[in-house]
């Protein structure tokens, strides 16, 4: 698969901190990519370099196989910043038109596309309203529409679901999937890792300006798995059932076990053992760590880890 974006040894230092310190990664065409990290990890600075708002101090960016040229390539990028911004006093239709034309669309084409999107997201009646009359969730939706109006090759969404209710969040998620199917590359940036686990094909985890993880969600989870399994039975589990060298019991309730498989055995060995014991197995799953847990493990003991433990609780 060809890469839409390649970032190599990118650096951006501010007076007080190294916001981005030697980060490299690449994003495949048509994939859904997650840029994860706690607040202040350097995500926004990284995105601002990719969108041509900042120039990197060092390093290079390649967009669609060529060296990134902010002046021309911005029309093929859609960027929704974390801090949402719209003109409060401007009518919604005019506002969408203005932003689309800034991205290089002609007036008639922009109008047609806006109408199309407004119908799809049930916003037809909004055209003459002002942004100040919209609720936060509604203006989020508008912001999303203005980001993708010009049919960008690469869509960058910084915390796209913050402030959205589940209904609208799912609506946006569906649209994102649809856009990805149509060939756009999506970049998610968020500190809410549980939100993107299910959507992203590929993630990069950054902390304090450096990359700490890079890979597919599945690959990373496998890399960090602890061989934990949850087994439920129809019968009550008795102590004599668990006295075996195959595994150690981590948690135990009446008819459920959480076990840690010992090195050198397979899950079939365990299944076979219980079948042999005459227990009816109701469910058997491997417990994979969440990205959150992996992240906490990676940065254990730093203030960033505490930030995420708090999110979990």
């Amino acid at each position, binding site marked *: 698969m060809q890469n839409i974006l390649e970032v190599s040894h990118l650096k951006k230092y501010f007076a007080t901190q190294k916001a981005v310190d030697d980060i490299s990664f690449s994003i495949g065409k048509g994939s859904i990519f997650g840029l994860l990290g706690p607040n202040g990890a350097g995500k926004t600075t990284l995105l*601002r370099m990719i*969108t*041509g*708002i900042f120039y990197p101090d060092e390093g290079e960016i390649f967009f669609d196989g060529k060296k990134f040229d902010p*002046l021309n390539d*911005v*029309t093929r*990028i859609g*960027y*929704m*910043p974390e*801090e*949402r*911004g*719209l*003109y*409060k*006093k*401007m009518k919604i239709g005019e506002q969408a038109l*203005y*932003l689309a*034309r*800034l*991205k290089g669309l002609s007036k008639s084409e922009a109008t047609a596309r806006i109408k199309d999107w407004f119908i799809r997201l049930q916003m037809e009646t909004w055209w003459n309203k002002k942004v100040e009359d919209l609720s936060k969730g509604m203006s989020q939706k508008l*912001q999303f529409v*203005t980001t993708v109006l010009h049919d960008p090759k690469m869509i960058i969404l910084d915390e796209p679901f913050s402030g959205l209710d589940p209904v609208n969040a799912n609506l946006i998620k569906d649209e994102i999937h649809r856009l990805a199917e149509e060939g756009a590359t999506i970049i998610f940036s968020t500190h809410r890792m549980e939100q993107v686990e299910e959507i992203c094909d590929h993630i990069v985890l950054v902390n304090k300006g450096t990359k700490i993880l890079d890979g597919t969600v599945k690959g990373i989870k496998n890399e960090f798995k602890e061989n934990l399994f949850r087994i439920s039975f129809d019968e009550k589990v008795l102590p004599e059932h668990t006295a075996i060298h195959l595994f150690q019991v981590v948690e135990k309730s009446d008819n459920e076990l959480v076990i840690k498989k010992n090195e050198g055995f397979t899950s079939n060995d365990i299944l076979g053992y219980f079948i042999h014991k005459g227990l009816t197995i109701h469910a058997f799953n491997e417990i994979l760590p969440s990205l959150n847990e992996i992240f906490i493990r990676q940065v254990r003991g730093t203030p960033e880890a505490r930030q995420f433990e708090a999110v979990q609780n």
Partner: protein
Amino acid sequence: MSKIGLIIQREYFTRVRNKTFILSTFLLPIMMIVFIFGSVFFAVKSREKQRVAVVNDPGFFRQNLKSDSSTVVFDFTPGIDSANYTEKGYGGILYLASDGGTQYELISKKQFGLESKGYIERQLNKAIESHLLQQRGIEKSTLDSITKASGKAVSLKNKVTDSDGKSKQANAGLAYGIGFGSGILIYITMFIFGAMVMRGVAEEKMNRIAEVIVSSCKPFELMLGKIIGIAGVGLTQFMLWIVLIFVLMTTLQFFLPHETMQQVQEVQQSQQQLPGGPNNSMALKILEAKTQFVEGVNWPLIIFCFLFYFLGGYLFYASLFAAIGSVINEDPQEAQALMLPITMPIIFAFIILTSSLSNPNSPVAVWASIIPFTSPIVMMGRIPFGVPDTVPYWQLGLSMVTLIGGFLFTTWFAGKVYRTGILMYGKKSSWKEMMRWAMKK
């Protein structure tokens, strides 16, 4: 359409369609016209006509006290005293001292207006003066011819000749008025539109729309688009004001009673200063300026220079205001502290303007009209006094060139600051820091 064109368009149309813009554009000229016509109208109407009975005339007043049909009419009918003057239709009764002394009494039921009182006083003085001159052997006819001749000498015309020896009529008062008017107009608009730019930039920063926009275009384009768009708003407002004032003036003249217009003309012609403060006379002067085409004023040059200095001065300062708008946060006091170094030179320029109007060739005036920080205001105060007589071509040229260079520099500087400031939140910035940002690549 280019991006900057789109930005200019948006900035322009959102402001021009704004209710405050429409209101201020239409109300200001209407208020001005109402004020001018109102004060003229009242100045004319408030001229009271008084009949004054003169009692105890020692002889020479009868021929020397001159009545004025519109203010005071003197009457020498005998048999009138303080008991019956109101019944006989007199507004007041004037007792004269028969021995030629200086004690005179004016008795009336109502207080006489300043104008009538002043007129009576002047007439008394004149009468006594003529009486004394006649007593010392000067013929009445001689005296009359002297008065007539001296009345003509009052108007002083300052003929200025240019290098070709052609003479032009110079009108210092009008030059003063034009200079002051255009100087103050540039001064006010620089503040109004400069502040508009600053608020616009700060609003985009607070709204967080700036980041959305600069992901589509260069920050410099956004800043310049805003500045140019607002300049267009300013020019539109000026044009509308000029057109509206002209239209209103012309139509109002038809609605004013003919009698009043005649009285206005009378007042204009009579040399005497109207009482009732400078407002009335200013109003008259404006009317005068409108009705009377004045030679010796190079209108095309003045209008061109006005537009040039308005735009130049605006561009010079607006970009600095934009730079401030980009670094401030929610705290309005922060803006005030940062604005001080910008507002000081503007206020300073205004102070120099007032002194350079009475002395347009003083070194301070000359240099202040060349340095771009003050030139838009001060130069406009000097130009009406004549180019190239008062302002040589080299001064005008140098002033224009430095102003263009000046605004190119401030725009460049502001662009640098703006680029960094617009995305910087929650941090207080100082001028020192802004300088550092400008020095960075």
